[in-house]
C-alpha cells in the first residue's frame, strides 16, 4: 500500500514538473533558447496568487485567473524587452540574459516580499480520498494535480494540432524564414508561445505551493531546473516528451527518496538523466538531427 501512495505522490510531483517542462519545451522549440527564468515566473505566479487570495480577498477562481494574467503579462514583457533584441545573437548571450532575468525576478521578489517564507493556503478544497479501509490515503492536492497535468497536456496537444495559431507555432519552430514567407506572424507567434508557457508556469506554481505550502523568492529555482531536466529527458522540443519526462522524474525522485536514500535522491535523478542521454542522446522522444558538411 505504501508503494502505491509513494507512486501517486510521485506522479503528482511529476505532473507539476511536467506542466513547467511543457513551458520550457515550447519556448525551446520555437525560440531555440533555454529560458532559465521560467522557474522564477512560477515563483511570481505563486506570489501573485498568494496576494490575490490573502491580501485582496479574491476568491479561488479569481485568484488563479489573476495569477495567470500577471504571469502571462510578465512572460510577454520579458520576451519583448530582454530576448527579442537578441534573437539573432549568439545562443550563449541569450542564455546569460535569461540568467540575468532570473536574478532580477528573484531579487525583485526578495525586495517586495522579504526573505521570510510565506505560508501558502492550499487552493484545493477537496477532502482526502480514503481507499482500502483507510490504508491508502490520497490527498486532494495529489488528485487535482494529476488531473490538471493530464488536462493541460491534452488541451495543449489539441491546440497545437487543431488550431491555426498552433499550426503557426509548428511552422515557426520548423523554419522561421519559410514561415515568414508563408505569411505567419513570427513575432506574434513567439509572443503567444511565451504567454502560454508563462500561464502554465503560474498554474504549476499554484499547484506546487498548494502541495508544499512555503513560498520564498527561490521557490521556483529547483523545480525550474528539475523541469528543465525533465524536458531534456523527454526530448526537448517535444510536448509528449516533456510530459513523460516530467512524470518519470517525479516518480523517480519520490521512489528513490522512499526506498534508497532521501539525501541522495537528487543524485539518483540526475544519474538517470545521464544514462538515458547516453543511450539516446536526443532524449526519449527527441528527433535525431543529421549534421551536414
Amino acid at each position, binding site marked *: 500500500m505504501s508503494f502505491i501512495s509513494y507512486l501517486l505522490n510521485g506522479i503528482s510531483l511529476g505532473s507539476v514538473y511536467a506542466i513547467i517542462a511543457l513551458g520550457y519545451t515550447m519556448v525551446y522549440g520555437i525560440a531555440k533558447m533555454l529560458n532559465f527564468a521560467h522557474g522564477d515566473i512560477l515563483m511570481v505566479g505563486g506570489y501573485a496568487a498568494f496576494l490575490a487570495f490573502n491580501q485582496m480577498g479574491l476568491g479561488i477562481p479569481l485568484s488563479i485567473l489573476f495569477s495567470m494574467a500577471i504571469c502571462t503579462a510578465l512572460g510577454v514583457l520579458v520576451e519583448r524587452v530582454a530576448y527579442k533584441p537578441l534573437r539573432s545573437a549568439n545562443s550563449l548571450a541569450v*542564455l546569460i540574459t535569461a540568467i*540575468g532575468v532570473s536574478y532580477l525576478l528573484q531579487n525583485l521578489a526578495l525586495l517586495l516580499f522579504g526573505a521570510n517564507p510565506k505560508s501558502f493556503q492550499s487552493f484545493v478544497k477537496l477532502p482526502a480520498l480514503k481507499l482500502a479501509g483507510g490504508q491508502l490515503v490520497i490527498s486532494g492536492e495529489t488528485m487535482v494535480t494529476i488531473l490538471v497535468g493530464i488536462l493541460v497536456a491534452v488541451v495543449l496537444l489539441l491546440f497545437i494540432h487543431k488550431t491555426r495559431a498552433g499550426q503557426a507555432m509548428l511552422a515557426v519552430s520548423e523554419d522561421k524564414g519559410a514561415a515568414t514567407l508563408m505569411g505567419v506572424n513570427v513575432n506574434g507567434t513567439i509572443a503567444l508561445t511565451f504567454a502560454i508557457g508563462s500561464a502554465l508556469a503560474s498554474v504549476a506554481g499554484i499547484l506546487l505551493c498548494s502541495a508544499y505550502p512555503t513560498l520564498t523568492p527561490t521557490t521556483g529555482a529547483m523545480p525550474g531546473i528539475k523541469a528543465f531536466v525533465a524536458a*531534456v529527458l523527454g526530448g526537448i522540443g517535444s510536448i509528449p516528451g516533456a510530459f513523460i519526462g516530467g512524470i518519470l522524474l517525479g516518480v523517480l525522485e519520490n521512489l528513490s527518496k522512499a526506498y534508497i536514500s532521501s539525501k541522495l535522491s537528487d543524485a539518483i535523478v540526475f544519474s538517470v538523466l545521464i544514462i538515458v542521454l*547516453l543511450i539516446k542522446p536526443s532524449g526519449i522522444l527527441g528527433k535525431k538531427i543529421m549534421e551536414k558538411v
Partner: protein
Amino acid sequence: MKNVQKNKIKDIFLNYGVILILYFVVQLFLKSGSVSSLMKGLLVPLCIYSILAISLNLVVGISGELSLGHAGFMCVGAFFSASCSMLLKGSSLPPMLIFFIALCIGAISAGFFGFLIGIPVLRLKGDYLAIVTLAFGEIIKNIINALYFGVDKNGWHFSLKDGTAVALGEGGKWIIKGAQGITGTPKYSNFTVGIILLLLSMLFIQHFIHSRTGRAVMAIRDNRIAAESIALPASKLKLLCFTISAAIAGIAGVLYAHNLSSLQALPKNFGYNQSIMILVFVVLGGIGNMRGSILAAVVLTLLPELLRSLNDYRMLIYAVVLIVMMLFTSAPGFIAFRENILHRLFRKEVNA
C-alpha cells in the same frame, strides 16, 4: 618581423605584467594599511574566480563546448585537497610541502573526474552537453553532502548513510562529516599564493592555446568534420581540453578550501548557480579571451561589494547591469547603434 616581435612583447605584458603590477600596487596599499578588512577578504576570492574563469574559457572558448558543471570540479578539488591536508596536518611535514601535496592531489583528482565525466559527456552536443554537465555538478555536490569519512588506527572509514554507520575507534577523527563538511582546514591560501597560481594557470593555458594541440582543438571547434578529415582525433583532443580545464578548476578549489577554516558543499559555493556565475565571467569577458575573463571576474566580484551601501538593491542592480551589458554587447540592434555613433564621431574628426 619586428612588428610580430613587438606584438608578442605587448601580449606578454598584458597577460602577466598587468597582473604583477596590480599585485604590487595592492601589496603597497596593504603595507600602508589603507585597505579595509572587507577588501582584504576579497583578495583571495578574486584570484579563485579569475582562475575558474580562465579554466572554463578553455572549454567554452577554445574547444567550443558549453559546460554548466564547473563548480563541481572546483568542489572535487576542494574536498580532496582539504581531506589530504587534514590527514597530514598532525605530521612533521612543513606546511608549504603539505599545501603543495594538497594542491597536486586537488588538481589530479579534479582532472581525473573531468576525464571520467568527459568520456561519455563529450559525445553529446550543445544544450544536451550543458544539462549533463549541470547534472554532474549537482551529483558531486549531493554525494559529498551525504558522505561521511573518518580516520582512526584501523584506517579509513566511509559511509554514505549517516555518521553512526562509521564506528570510529579510539583517537579517531572526522575528516568529512556529511553536510557539516570539513572543519578545521589549515589556512594556507593567501594573496601571494593566489596570484602565483593565477599566473601559472595563465601561463599554462596560453602555452596550450598556442601549441600544436591547442590549434588543433580550435580547428575542431571551427569545423569538426573538416578537422577530422585531416586526421585530427577530435574526441581525444576535446577530452584533453576538458580534463585540463577541470584540473585547473580543481586548483581554484584547493585555494578556496584552504582560505576558510570550514568547508561545506552548499548550493551557494558549489551549486549550479556558481557554475553559471563562472560562465557569466567567460561570456561577458569575451569567449576565448583570457584577459577578458579575468577582467570580468574581477569586476563582477567587486561590483556587489562596491554596491554594498545600497543594501537590498545591490543584487537587483547587479541583475539589471548583467542584462543591459548583454544587450549592449550582443544585440544586433545595439551593435548597429554603437557603430553608427562611432562612425559619426570618426567622420567628424576627419572633417575637422
